[in-house]
């Protein structure tokens, strides 16, 4: 009986603690634009955050919250008025301590835990990178909507999708892979076409996207 009480106490403590985590995001008004749980009402102003922990790379996330920049040049594509080219509001900048606390909570938010994580191997060699770039630009038309990098090392590409110019520092490879294979697990309806990719092709695209880093640009 004592053990049972102890268990209830621990459970209660754990539950209130988890609740306190999300409430920190609410205190900082994250929920005014972002969905913090998959059960939340459809929120169309900014990207969902209930899988932030599997989507973003930690150093990037901490830096972004302190010094935000615009990733979606035409605003978030989930908005109904998106095609009318809205000017996106810059993300608020958080003081260093708050940014770290918020990042700590965001990094715990995960949706899919893959049973067998993919090994994305070594960074692409120059020759393989060129072939993967052709996949990215020609075969799957990614650059029609996403900014990547051109042959001169400058950002280029469409502006309706989030910029992938620095995606190699921003996104986790496993998340990009999951998104390419089953976007509906994250979002019921996006504006990006679905592709029926075999695993090998999806991995090549992920490897290519991971090479897109600001530090590699000229």
């Amino acid at each position: 009986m004592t053990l049972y009480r102890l268990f209830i106490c621990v459970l209660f403590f754990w539950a209130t603690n988890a609740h306190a985590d999300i409430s920190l995001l609410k205190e900082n008004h994250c929920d005014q634009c972002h969905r913090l749980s998959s059960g939340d009402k459809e929120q169309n102003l900014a990207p969902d955050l209930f899988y932030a922990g599997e989507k973003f790379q930690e150093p990037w996330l901490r830096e972004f919250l302190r010094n935000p920049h615009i990733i979606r040049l035409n605003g978030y594509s989930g908005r109904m008025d998106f095609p009318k080219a809205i000017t996106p509001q810059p993300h608020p900048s958080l003081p260093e301590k708050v940014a770290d606390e918020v990042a700590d909570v965001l990094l715990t938010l995960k949706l899919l835990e893959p049973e067998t994580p993919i090994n994305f191997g070594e960074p692409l060699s120059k020759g393989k990178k060129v072939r993967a770039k052709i996949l990215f630009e020609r075969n799957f038309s990614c650059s029609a909507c996403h900014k990547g990098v051109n042959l001169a090392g400058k950002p280029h590409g469409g502006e309706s999708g989030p910029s992938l110019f620095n995606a190699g520092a921003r996104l986790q490879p496993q998340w990009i892979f999951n998104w390419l294979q089953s976007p509906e697990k994250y979002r019921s309806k996006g504006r990006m076409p679905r592709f029926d990719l075999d695993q090998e092709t999806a991995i090549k695209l992920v490897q290519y996207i991971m090479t897109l880093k600001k530090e590699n640009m000229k």
Partner: protein
Amino acid sequence: MTSIWLKFLGTSILLTLSACTNDSDESVHREPPPTVAEVPHETFVPAPEVVKPAPVSQKTRDTYQWYCSQCHGITGKGDGMNALQLAVPPRNHTKADYLETRTDQQLFEAIKLGGLAVGRAPCMPAWGNTLKDADITGLVNYIRELCHCEGA
């Protein structure tokens, strides 16, 4: 004479390599696409009586707005938010001169299989895994309504 050929060669190589996006310097300031308030509504004329395309459902119009308008624009004039960044401009769906030379089947395949598969610009992705055949047929009818033209 040689310099003209060199220029031609240079341009062709650039176009081939740049796939579908414009490789020009990004530092050049570009005007943002017009907001909805700036797009003149009176230019959007309903189909005249002469050509009677199949009726277009609201669902089809919404599908066009949701996906196609990103490049082809909200009124189909090829002026979507990606248009300025693409080496090959998105097709203007309100102009008949090219579209009337295409059959409905050709438009259907371009949407379903993408530009590259049908020998057109690779910027146009394949929508066959996103949209059902019936949705794509609806979009072909909507393009016919926008261009006031029939298939070849």
